[in-house]
């Protein structure tokens, strides 16, 4: 179901969160939602992060790097196939993606073991 009002409060896909957004808080920088509210099953780093704009919009901006990492992980292509001359930022981003993916898999395994 479409909720245009909620979309506006979330910053219209990329903008800052607006006043009235459920579970949002305000600090000296502006309005944010705690990471653990956005993704309750996230890792420690994201859990403590202050999310100030729609994380899906951010993920869309980084889609090319996420896709390249997924292809690399699945053995379909190397990172260098997509980024022949990667900047340091791409290498860092792949490092972050790899660490967070491994942590996510670990949480899934632990959750499965604990029933």
């Amino acid at each position, binding site marked *: 179901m479409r909720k245009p009002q909620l979309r506006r409060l979330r910053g219209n896909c*990329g903008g800052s969160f607006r006043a009235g957004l459920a579970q949002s808080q305000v600090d000296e920088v502006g309005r944010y939602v705690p990471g653990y509210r956005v993704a309750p099953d996230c890792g420690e780093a994201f859990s403590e992060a202050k999310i100030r704009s729609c994380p899906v919009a951010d993920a869309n901006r980084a889609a090319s790097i996420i896709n390249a990492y997924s292809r690399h992980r699945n053995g379909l292509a190397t990172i260098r196939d997509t*980024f022949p*001359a990667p*900047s*340091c*930022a791409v290498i*860092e981003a792949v490092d*972050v993606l790899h660490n967070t993916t491994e942590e996510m898999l670990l949480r899934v395994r632990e959750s499965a073991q604990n029933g």
Partner: protein
Amino acid sequence: MALHFFTSSESTLDVVVTCDPAINASDEAKNEYLKTGDRALLGDHAGATIFTIKALGPSEREEAEVKAGAYTRSELGRLLWSQQPSETEERARWHHALEEDERAALAHYRNYLDNVYLEMVNASLQTIDGQPASIDQVQMIQPDDARIVTISELVLHIRRISLLGDSGK
């Protein structure tokens, strides 16, 4: 959050420095420009010197660090540098209480960082106003405070387009 970094180390960006007399923007606009690299924020800046820089790849960054003395830098200095207080007076008193050899180590590490910045500019700078350039041309900028601001701002732009940034981690 927009992505301010480049994915390719072959991509280039034209930047200006905020101490350029051709730039008449407000301090807020200049600060925002340094954060984003969006020259439109500066309004009319016709006549400003254009520095063309490229993003650094991992090997170029490593090479810059090695040239600056990564293998001979003071590890004690690096440790002290990471421990120094952020508040000015507290930092001054903290520095005053250091032993003589600790001060020397800290100074050695600061010198290494300065050299890293110069090597980063040297690796990244492509042209100045369309003419091939290196750090040597930047070092000739007068007066001296304009030279220091130019190097600082070029490093800031290079870091922004080459690295992920704190918000991405």
